[in-house]
C-alpha cells in the first residue's frame, strides 16, 4: 500500500444543462480509494453512481472539483493523455458486454494493448495471461457469441485488467447475468486486489455483491450520505453477527 490514493475525488461537482434546466448529478463528492481496495457504490436510480464512474474513467469532466488517478489531476491531461489513461491505468466493465463480435476472445483482450502500440505477438502473450486470470485460457480463439453471458463478462474483465491496470471501474457488471454467473463474476472481481493490487470500484444495486467490498458508499441526490465497512458493525447487532458465525 502507498500513501497516495489510486483514485481520489476532491469536492467534485457534476451538473448537466444550464440555468433553470441545470441538473446536478454529483454535489461536492469527496472520496479516496486506496490501491487494492474494493469499493461498492450503491444508491437509488439517478443518484449519480454512473456519473461517478464516468468521471473516474475520464469519460466525462467535472463541473467543479478535481478527480485524480494515482495523484494526477485528470483535468491536467490532454485528450490524448486521457485516452492513454483509459488504455493503461483504468479499466472499465459495463453491464452490456461490449465485446467486438468479429474478434476472437483473445483478440478482444489484446485490443487495448494493440491500440496502445504494443506489438501483436507481445500483446497476445499478455492477453493470454489475462484470459488465464479469468479462467478462460482454454478458449482463446472462440468468438464472443460462442460464450455464455457470464463467460463474456469474464472476457470483458480480462480486457479491462490486461496490462496491469491499477483501477477497474465496474458499472453493474452483473446486470445481465443469472445469479450463478453473477456470483462468479463478482468473486473474480474481488480477487483482483489480492492478485494484482488492482483497486475495484463496483456500482451495484445488489447487497449480496456489495458485501464483497471493503467499503460500501451510498449516494443520494448526488451526495455521499453514508458508508459502511465490515469493521464498522455496530455493537447492537453484534449478537446477530455471532449467530451468523
Amino acid at each position: 500500500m502507498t500513501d497516495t490514493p489510486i483514485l481520489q475525488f476532491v469536492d467534485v461537482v457534476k451538473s448537466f444543462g444550464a440555468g433553470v434546466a441545470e441538473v446536478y448529478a454529483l454535489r461536492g463528492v469527496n472520496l479516496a480509494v486506496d490501491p487494492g481496495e474494493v469499493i461498492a457504490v450503491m444508491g437509488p436510480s439517478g443518484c449519480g453512481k454512473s456519473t461517478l464512474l464516468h468521471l473516474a474513467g475520464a469519460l466525462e469532466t467535472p463541473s467543479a472539483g478535481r478527480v485524480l488517478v494515482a495523484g494526477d489531476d485528470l483535468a491536467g491531461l490532454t485528450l490524448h493523455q486521457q485516452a492513454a489513461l483509459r488504455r493503461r491505468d483504468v479499466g472499465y466493465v459495463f453491464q452490456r458486454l461490449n465485446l467486438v463480435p468479429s474478434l476472437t476472445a483473445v483478440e478482444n483482450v489484446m485490443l487495448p494493448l494493440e491500440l496502445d502500440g504494443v506489438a501483436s505477438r507481445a500483446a497476445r502473450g499478455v492477453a493470454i495471461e489475462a484470459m488465464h486470470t479469468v479462467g478462460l485460457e482454454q478458449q482463446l480463439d472462440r468468438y464472443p457469441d460462442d460464450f455464455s453471458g457470464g463467460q463474456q463478462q469474464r472476457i470483458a474483465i480480462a480486457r479491462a485488467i490486461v496490462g496491469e491496470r491499477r483501477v477497474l471501474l465496474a458499472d453493474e457488471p452483473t446486470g445481465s447475468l443469472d445469479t450463478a454467473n453473477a456470483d462468479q463474476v463478482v468473486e473474480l472481481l474481488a480477487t483482483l486486489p489480492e492478485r494484482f493490487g488492482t483497486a475495484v470500484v463496483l456500482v451495484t444495486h445488489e447487497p449480496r455483491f456489495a458485501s464483497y467490498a471493503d467499503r460500501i458508499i451510498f449516494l443520494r441526490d448526488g451526495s455521499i450520505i453514508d458508508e459502511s465497512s465490515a469493521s464498522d458493525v455496530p455493537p447492537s447487532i453484534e449478537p446477530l453477527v455471532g449467530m451468523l458465525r
Partner: protein
Amino acid sequence: MAVREGLLSLLSDGPRYGYQLKTQFEAATGGIWPLNVGQVYTTLDRLNRDGLVGELAAAAETETAQKSYELTAAGREALGAWWSTVPVDEPPPRDELMLKMLMAIDHGRDHALAVVTSHRTALLGLLQARRREARQQTAAGVTPPHDLLAAQLVHDALVVRAEADLRWLDLCESRLLASGQPDRTDGAASERSEPAGPTARPTPARRLTRKARR
C-alpha cells in the same frame, strides 16, 4: 413453530427420553433455540394430557426409570396437519423494522430517510462481515462438516432476510423520495431524536475524512 410441534416431529422417529428430546431439539434448530429440560417435560405433560403422546409402559411401571415417550395415533395426525399447514403472513407480522419505519415516516421525510440510511448501513456491514469470513474460510480450505447443516441453513436464512430487509429499505427510500413528502418543520421536529441506534455512527463527512488516505 412452538416447542410442542418440535417435540412431535422428533418423536415421529421413535420413542425418546426427555433429555434426548432437549438435545435433539437444540441440534435440529441449528443452536438458535436453547431449551430448558423443564420446558420439555412440561410440554410432554400437556401433549400426554391431550392424548398426542403416551408414556411407554415399561417406563411408567418404575418410578426411578427415565420416562420414555412415544407418539400416539392422534399425535401423528396432529403432526401431519402441522406439516401441511403453510404459514401465511395474515395479518402482517409486527416486524420491528417495518414498524420503526412507519413511525419514522410520521416524523417527516428527512427523519425517515435517516432511519433508512442508518439501518441499511448496519445491515450491509453485517453482510460484509459475513462475506469476509466466508472468503477467509474458503481460502483456508475450511469446509463445514455435514452435521452443521442446520446451523448453515440458519445462517443462510439470516443472510437472505438481511438482503430482503435491505431491498425493502431501498423501496422505502425510493417511495419517500418520489412522494415529495415534506419534512416536518414544526417544533416537534426539533425535539425528535435522530437515529442513534442501532448504528450510533459518526456523520458521513467525519468518517469520510477518517477514511480518506492522504
